[in-house]
């Protein structure tokens, strides 16, 4: 309720938050001007040359990065112990890094990962600039295994547009803290394009309105990604393989740990100034109410990807591509059918901190829709809260004999890659051979689902989900699918309602009948 007291408290709190951030981040003048450093005068022929110059001062930096998921693309889930990361986990977007490296590794925090024999120990291959460029001119070429452009090149091919290589010396002299464009270059474009993968991460967050993202808006808290996703020794905090379902520690500033990208680590455990709302945090994740819809920035996110239809050719014999009125591909011969969504209401599920992420080599049950990363939890689980998800609908190739997913070799100028030949027979065989995984030689398509945590694009509090969007009997109530709780306003006991209805109708009816009988039998006035 917008009482003067609570709004005063809220603005006081907002002021404190901003003050805290300016203390942490903005206020210190750097003691180094990189532009004056001899090692950074250039010219630099390649990215690794720049890295070597960086390492001449920051001599531990590369080894820190090399210990991080941004370099390894591999991580052990702390909750299931399973080896995950892009190298192993299956998704229902592009598929697998294996056999497609030069394309996929354009988002690797390194240079030259062209094939499965990549040497992960060469520290000069760490890409410092992807994260630390502040000029906005450093770009990794989509197809060059993480390298930027070194020579002028026509891109895209046949367009007549010549792209100039970035000035590496100038970029090196202007390094700084990672901004939203650095992170966004990969994380806003996951899945092969803007907004495709996450639903709550896209380029609208570079300059978001307050309504889109209250934290990142310039007239909001004006925070950047790394203000929440704090880095310790170049290791980022926050993980979709093991997102913290319920933070019971609260503000983490007091521990000085800065290892958790949870709402509570800033907002603490009872943030509403309203007991009834605070009582919800035990069972409801902050995001559930505070991110009413995802893909709110005007850029559609992919909601369906059906690989089974890929490979069609148009009447002209050329690969078929169909676009919708927004310029989005709805069909691509390379990738199949797509659907997109904007302002999408999330799907709500219990989540207790454990994600059962399928790896490409896992045995799967093909008798039903395959959930690639089932989130665990229920109403009775003390660690579980109701979380919002983008549920990505997919249909992708698998091996119906061995019952595993497959590696599809999509990228490459060879006669097996799918995007050159549009032949699954060849491309899957090539991918599985390359990966060294057993393959029966048969493939089919399986329907899959993938849960994407919705945790960005936090709306201002006045746009939060209203009470009656869940507390309602309407079939489209937000929590209509969460049936293992008693939800006031939605649930009831039909027998008690029947009894109560009969009691009330009976009371009114008895009174009415009695009254009518009195009137009918009333022979003379009673009044004196």
């Amino acid at each position, binding site marked *: 309720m917008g009482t003067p007291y609570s709004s005063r408290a809220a603005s006081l709190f907002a002021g404190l938050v901003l003050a805290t951030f300016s203390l942490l981040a903005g206020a210190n003048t750097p003691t180094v001007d990189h532009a004056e450093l001899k090692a950074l005068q250039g010219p630099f022929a390649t990215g690794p040359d720049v890295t070597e110059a960086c390492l001449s001062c920051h001599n531990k930096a590369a080894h820190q990065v090399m210990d991080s998921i941004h370099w390894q693309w591999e991580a052990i889930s702390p909750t299931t112990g399973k080896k995950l990361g892009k190298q192993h986990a299956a998704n229902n977007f592009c598929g697998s890094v294996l056999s497609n490296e030069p394309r996929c590794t354009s988002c690797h925090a390194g240079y030259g990962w062209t094939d499965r024999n990549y040497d992960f120990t060469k520290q000069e291959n760490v890409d410092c600039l992807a994260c630390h460029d502040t000029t906005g001119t450093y770009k990794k070429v989509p197809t060059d295994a993480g390298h930027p452009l070194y020579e002028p090149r026509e891109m895209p091919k046949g367009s007549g547009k010549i792209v100039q290589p970035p000035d590496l010396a100038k970029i090196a002299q202007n390094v700084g803290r990672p901004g939203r464009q650095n992170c966004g270059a990969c994380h806003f474009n996951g899945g092969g394009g803007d907004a495709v993968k996450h639903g709550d991460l896209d380029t609208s967050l570079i300059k978001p309105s307050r309504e889109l993202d209250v934290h990142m808006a310039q007239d909001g808290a004006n925070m950047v990604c790394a203000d929440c996703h704090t880095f310790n020794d170049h290791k980022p905090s926050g993980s979709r393989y093991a997102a913290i379902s319920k933070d019971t520690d609260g503000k983490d500033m007091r521990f000085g740990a800065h290892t958790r990208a949870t709402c509570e680590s800033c907002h603490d455990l009872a943030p509403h100034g309203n007991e009834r709302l605070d009582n919800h945090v035990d069972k409801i994740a902050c995001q559930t109410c505070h991110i009413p819809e995802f893909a709110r920035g005007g850029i559609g996110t992919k909601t369906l990807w059906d690989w089974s239809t890929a490979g069609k050719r148009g009447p002209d014999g050329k690969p078929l591509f169909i676009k919708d009125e927004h310029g989005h591909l709805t069909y691509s011969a390379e990738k199949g059918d797509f659907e997109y969504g904007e302002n999408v209401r999330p799907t709500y599920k219990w989540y207790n901190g454990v994600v059962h992420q399928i790896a490409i080599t896992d045995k799967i049950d093909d008798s039903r829709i395959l959930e690639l990363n089932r989130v665990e939890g229920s109403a009775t689980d003390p660690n579980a809260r109701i979380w919002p998800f983008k549920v990505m609908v997919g249909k992708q190739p698998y091996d119906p004999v061995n019952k595993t997913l497959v590696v599809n070799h999509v990228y490459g100028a060879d006669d097996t890659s799918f995007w050159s030949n549009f032949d699954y027979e060849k491309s899957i065989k090539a991918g599985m051979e390359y990966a060294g995984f057993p393959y029966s030689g048969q493939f089919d398509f399986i329907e899959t689902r993938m849960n994407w945590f919705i945790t960005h694009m936090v709306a201002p509090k006045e746009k939060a989900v209203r009470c009656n969007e869940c507390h309602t009997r309407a079939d489209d109530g937000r929590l209509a699918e969460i049936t293992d709780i008693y939800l006031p*306003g939605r649930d009831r006991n039909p027998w008690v309602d029947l009894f109560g209805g009969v009691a009330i109708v009976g009371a009114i009816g008895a*009174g009415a009948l009695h009254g009518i009988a009195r009137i009918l039998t009333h022979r003379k006035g009673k009044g004196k």
Partner: protein
Amino acid sequence: MSENRIYIYKRYERFWHWSQAALIIVMMITGFEIHGSYTLMGFRDAVNLHTLAAWALLVLWAFTIFWQFTTGEWRQYLPSMRNVSAMVLYYTVGIFKDVPHPFRKTVVQKHNPLQRLAYLALLAFISPLIWGSGLLYLFYAQWPGLGLDKYLTLEGVAIAHTLGAFLITAFFFIHVYLTTTGHTVFAHIKAMITGWEEVDEAPVAAPAASRKR
């Protein structure tokens, strides 16, 4: 006005009755919205208003219980089975034949025997049900701290509360109807507003107006 009237409802009693009536009506309206029976002011406002009215009614009851005991009025709720059958006979037969009301209100006996039973049932069964379940509902978040979560479910408490609400609502409608059964349709309501009840015939007891509040 006739001089055949007695001052039967004292000022506090009338204040109590009408403020309680208003609060209960508010709680019925908001309560059934919270139950999901209809949408009127929205779930949030309904919950807030319902809770506010509940606390207001608790405060009112605290004063009223004090008043009942300091004035001795609590004795009005002591039940007696005597003359209950006469009351039942009156409401089922006599009232249609213009038989005089078998009970004569006096200051020391303002409730007829059937009323006494009804109010006692309300106090002894429905009231504990709705207040007990309501307070548990309100303090749901404190259950683990109080060790209650092992014994209670939200569903059980909510359904008990709903049952109580249905019973109170049914009572409310019967209560309102019965106010019309005085010697005129609005006689009882008038009495509850002014405090003065007109009586059919010359009162047996001395006029009560002199009695102290």
